[in-house]
């Protein structure tokens, strides 16, 4: 279990993490979400003892990471796949980790097989692709067969097969009773694998809840309905619906009424329906709603201007 209490990190004028408190429970995959610069990586680094908190503490199984004598048998982490000596072979990299924690070297071969590095393990890391480095980092995290796992953007650089593999791996770890904390900016991915989510923005906790509760916490359920007589249907629904939006020439989006009541109302007034379905909320939608006030770095789409050829302009 990971416990974070009042964790704060100040870099000069910038407060990267601000009085953060949460627990990551065993037996679940906990997603760690937030916009760029929200403080996710800094928080993970403080949990792993890499950075010193300005205030507060982060405990792993009740103790600061720095106090663990054989840390990788307790906690495995992939924080930065690029952070390895490029001149060393993958196997040598893992063997150093094993030696440091008194783990038999046979375990190195096991994790190499597990992550699918195989023959690449004898090559120097500078020749690895990002995906291979990710796999090597994951192998290092698994070396000590730990009960607590932290992954910072683990699917970066992985191909589809790799993404499916990491998805199953994380799910499997949680099902075995391990504590799994994983940060990602891929909301669809998190919706598939996370049981709980911790959302932070500008270093502060925004939400700490399970996925279902987060999705339910959005607007009231909305229903999308299509009919060639959309106006008549809207008129029939108006007294009971909390809102009706026209989303197309023959399409409405209705809030405040379940789908079966909309179907019944259409039947009563003799309006034919071509489509009737509840609108599924996505984690991405929920996330964007939660973090819309906490985004530090916005991109801008260049203004669309009429294409003008030089010759035409002249």
């Amino acid at each position, binding site marked *: 279990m990971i416990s974070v209490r009042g964790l704060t990190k100040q870099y000069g004028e910038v407060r990267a993490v601000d009085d953060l408190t949460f627990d990551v429970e065993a037996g679940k995959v906990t997603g760690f979400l937030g916009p760029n610069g929200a403080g996710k990586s800094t928080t993970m*680094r403080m949990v*792993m*003892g*890499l*950075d*010193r908190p300005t205030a507060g503490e982060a405990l792993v*199984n009740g*103790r600061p*990471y*720095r*106090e*663990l*004598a*054989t*840390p*990788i*048998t*307790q906690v495995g*982490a992939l*924080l*930065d796949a*690029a*952070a*390895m*000596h*490029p*001149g*060393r*072979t993958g196997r*040598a*990299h893992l*063997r*150093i*980790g094993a*030696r*440091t*924690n*008194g783990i038999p070297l046979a375990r190195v071969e*096991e994790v190499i097989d*597990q992550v699918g590095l195989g023959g690449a393990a004898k090559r120097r890391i500078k020749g690895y692709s990002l995906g291979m480095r990710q796999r090597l980092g994951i192998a*290092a995290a*698994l070396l*000590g*067969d*730990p*009960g607590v796992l932290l992954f910072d953007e683990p699917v970066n650089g992985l191909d589809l097969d790799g993404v499916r593999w990491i998805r199953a791996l994380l799910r*499997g770890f949680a099902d*075995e*009773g*391990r504590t799994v904390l994983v940060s990602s900016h891929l909301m669809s991915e998190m919706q598939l694998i996370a049981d709980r989510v911790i959302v932070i923005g500008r270093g502060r906790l925004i939400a700490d809840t399970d996925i279902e509760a987060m999705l339910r916490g959005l607007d009231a359920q909305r229903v999308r309905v299509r009919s060639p007589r959309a106006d008549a249907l809207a008129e029939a629904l108006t007294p009971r619906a909390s809102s009706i939006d026209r989303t197309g020439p023959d399409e409405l989006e209705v809030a405040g009424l379940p789908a079966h009541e909309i179907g019944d109302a259409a039947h009563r007034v003799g309006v034919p329906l071509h489509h009737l379905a509840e609108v599924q909320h996505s984690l991405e939608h929920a996330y964007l709603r939660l973090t819309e006030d906490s985004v530090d770095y916005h991109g801008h789409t260049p203004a669309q201007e009429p294409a003008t050829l030089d010759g035409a302009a002249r």
Partner: protein
Amino acid sequence: MTTTLAAPETTRTDNLGTVLLRTCRAEWARIWSVRSSWAFALAIGVVVLGFATILGFDARSGWGEDAPEGGSWALGQVAGTFGMFVLVAFALVAATADHGTGGIVPTLQWTPRRGVLLAARATVVVLTTTGFCLLLVLAASLLARLIAPDFGLAAEDLGVLAEVAGVYVGVTLLSVAIGLATRNTAGGLMAVIGLILVLPLMLAILGQAFDWARDLGELVPGTGALHLMFDETLGSPAPQLSTEYAWGLLGVWAVGALALGGLRMLRADADR
């Protein structure tokens, strides 16, 4: 993949000594598992044995009254001093490689007790480089003896090797410490070469004209190291120094720099 969860930390009985020993083994593996270490070893070997060959032929042509008391041992010592300049570069690279490559992240994940890492890193780099270079000095002395048979290799002069070992320990420790303090290979290298080679020689030359330069030269660690290594052969940059002062100067710099570098490793964020 086994489904067995790791044993709780409280059941492990690893004491500090065990953890330190494991970390030393890992540090040793860090050194030999990269090609640059072997390239440095080769470079040091070429420099030391190359200078031993040159000195041997030079000595054979007749040094007369300039012949050092230590015979071939002294020739090996001089050759070893030239190798020392490559040695400090190697020690510095060994200390800064983790910071330059980002490897400090897995290193501190595997050894979060920074005091243990500091002790292991300094010990392994110093012992490895000193041991290797001593063997080279021994080989250089034998080579010089073969080339210049008039230069003896008396057992009673073996103490030269202890002196060489002491200087190697001092300059290597200084290099590691500066590497840990700067976390930057290029900057650290400039600082070490400046302190060990450039400043002592430059201040020695200026010291012939200016007293302040001579006084300043007596505070630079390289002056102490070169005095100990060259005093009886090529000449010290500060012949007025006593042997005790030279040892003290080198020791104070090495320990002081280690305190500074150690403090940064213990207190600062991993790679900022």
